């Protein structure tokens, strides 16, 4: 009874708006009352949530297992860094170029993906991430190889410098909020429905007049576009980029964020991001065990809540362990009753 009431409380629209308002107010005040480290962590969450939301569109909604998202992030970062340091392009232009350029790369990568099922598609995306690293590490004249590109000037929109830590924070905050709204609306639109239809059943989708190939390519382009934007923000925020940030490990972390948050849920992507950015910071003393702790948490998640924290159970075929035990106990009780009758 109590549980139902609680559930009711959280599913009410007014409650949700209230909670969102508190969150929004908290994030607005945060830079003025917290220290530099906290500010940095929240800023990192903003950048990573662009990545996880983008990957959620590709993986959680259209069902394409993309394990190369960090490489797309890298494409955006390198486009920005090269344009800004090599050609003195202003940040606003580089920001757009990063989004569009990365989306074009996403378009090219998505085309061979059309012919493949999820598992093999993930191999293509893994291959892409290694090709990306190989190019970046060896194309000395453009990417400066393993030493990376330093001296990228800070975020600057149309001549207004956002160089102070607070200003950068608010730029990242704004971009994250706008992206969240845009992506949420895409997933709730008719096109969002088409993505999920393709994920669930391509043949059924085709029979309904949906073009699976088009939907897949477009969702890949949308997801990688936001990865490109994240790359631009990251390059200008940190001021230096090197190949070691955009590795396969980072891609798996981004996918873990989506799984933890719950595939098929955009708010879930953000929740997963918060966890995977905050977790390593809070247990920094156990630095050596960070990967292990993340792994254990993923295992527990698969056991108890396979659909993820906010997920729609889209990818979980079985119930959580507690539900399975409950069902077994009920079945046993029923069997006992039948025996005595």
């Amino acid at each position, binding site marked *: 009874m109590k549980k139902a009431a609680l559930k009711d409380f959280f599913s009410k629209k007014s409650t949700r708006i209230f909670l969102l308002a508190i969150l929004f107010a908290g994030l607005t005040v945060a830079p003025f009352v917290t220290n530099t480290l906290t500010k940095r962590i929240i800023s990192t969450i903003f950048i990573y949530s662009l990545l996880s939301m983008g990957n959620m569109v590709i993986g959680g909604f259209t069902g394409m297992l993309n394990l190369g998202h960090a490489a797309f992030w890298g494409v955006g970062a390198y486009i920005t860094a090269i344009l800004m340091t090599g050609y003195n392009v202003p940040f606003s232009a580089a920001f757009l170029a990063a989004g569009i350029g990365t989306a074009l790369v996403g378009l090219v990568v998505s085309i061979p993906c059309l012919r493949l099922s999820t598992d093999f598609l993930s191999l293509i995306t893994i291959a892409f991430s290694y090709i990306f690293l190989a190019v970046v590490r060896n194309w000395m004249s453009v990417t400066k190889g393993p030493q990376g590109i330093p001296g990228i000037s800070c975020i600057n929109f149309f001549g207004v410098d956002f160089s102070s830590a607070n200003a950068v924070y608010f730029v990242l905050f704004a971009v994250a909020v706008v992206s969240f709204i845009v992506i949420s609306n895409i997933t709730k639109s*008719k096109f969002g*429905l*088409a993505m*999920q*239809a393709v*994920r*669930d*059943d391509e*043949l*059924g*989708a*085709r*029979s*309904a*007049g*949906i*073009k699976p190939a088009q939907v897949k390519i477009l969702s890949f382009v949308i997801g990688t576009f936001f990865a490109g934007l994240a790359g631009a923000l990251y390059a200008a925020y940190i001021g230096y980029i090197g190949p070691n940030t955009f590795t396969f490990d980072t891609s798996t972390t981004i996918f873990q964020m989506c799984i933890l948050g719950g595939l*098929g849920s955009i708010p879930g992507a953000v929740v997963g991001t918060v966890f995977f950015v905050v977790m390593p910071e809070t247990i920094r003393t156990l630095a050596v065990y960070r990967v292990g702790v993340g792994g254990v948490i993923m295992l527990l998640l698969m056991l108890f809540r396979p659909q993820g924290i906010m997920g*729609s*159970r*889209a990818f979980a075929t079985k119930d959580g362990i507690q539900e399975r035990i409950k069902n077994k106990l009920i079945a046993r009780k029923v069997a006992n009753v039948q025996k005595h009758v």
Partner: protein
Amino acid sequence: MILSVENLWMYYGQVQALHDVSVYADEGEIVAVIGLNGAGKTTLLKTIMGQEKPASGKISFKGTSILGKSTNDIVKEGIALVPEGRQVFATLSVYDNLMAGAYIRNDNKEIQQDIEKYCKRFPILGERLNQRAGYMSGGEQQMLALARALMSRPKIMLLDEPSLGLAPVIIKEVYEIIEEIRKEGTTIFLVEQNAKRALSVSDRAYILVNGEITMSEKSETLLNNDAVRRAYLGV
């Protein structure tokens, strides 16, 4: 003639799937194609829907050729397919499944009216509107698949083995609904292994054997044909 297929030849690589197949459906008819596993029934429907390319032949809908058109355009023309094994969107709610069925339409108001209409027609869908489609039974999913196909407001519906994997009682129910759909003016073209059911509701039927039409008769005649009875009805 609302749908006509003439001299269709179709190969999967070296394997011949359809051998000079000609079938047609008149407006308001229920036409059945009876055949065993592997006879080419599903291939025929897939070719009509533009999902497979024939080697030669003609396919026309309301007098104009639809050969070479994309599935999406064919659905827009007014042909809907209920695929074999239902293929509902398992993780989506019943409501979203119906919305996806209306993907090619843009008249939101009428889409909502249609959803209400089909919730009355298929009470089980009305009851489970917000439930996940994958949690429904096979029969319920078949109802959903029919309703989803109807959401595109088709002139003709192609049904691929509507009785597959369903209990006899449910099969009866499904076929009653098929007859009702026809009464409302939608032509039905169905392929079936369950010859008895298909022959008893359809007006005309074709017998498909190894990709070849071997018989084309009124369904009643086929029901009483000795060879057919022996081969398909098990008597």
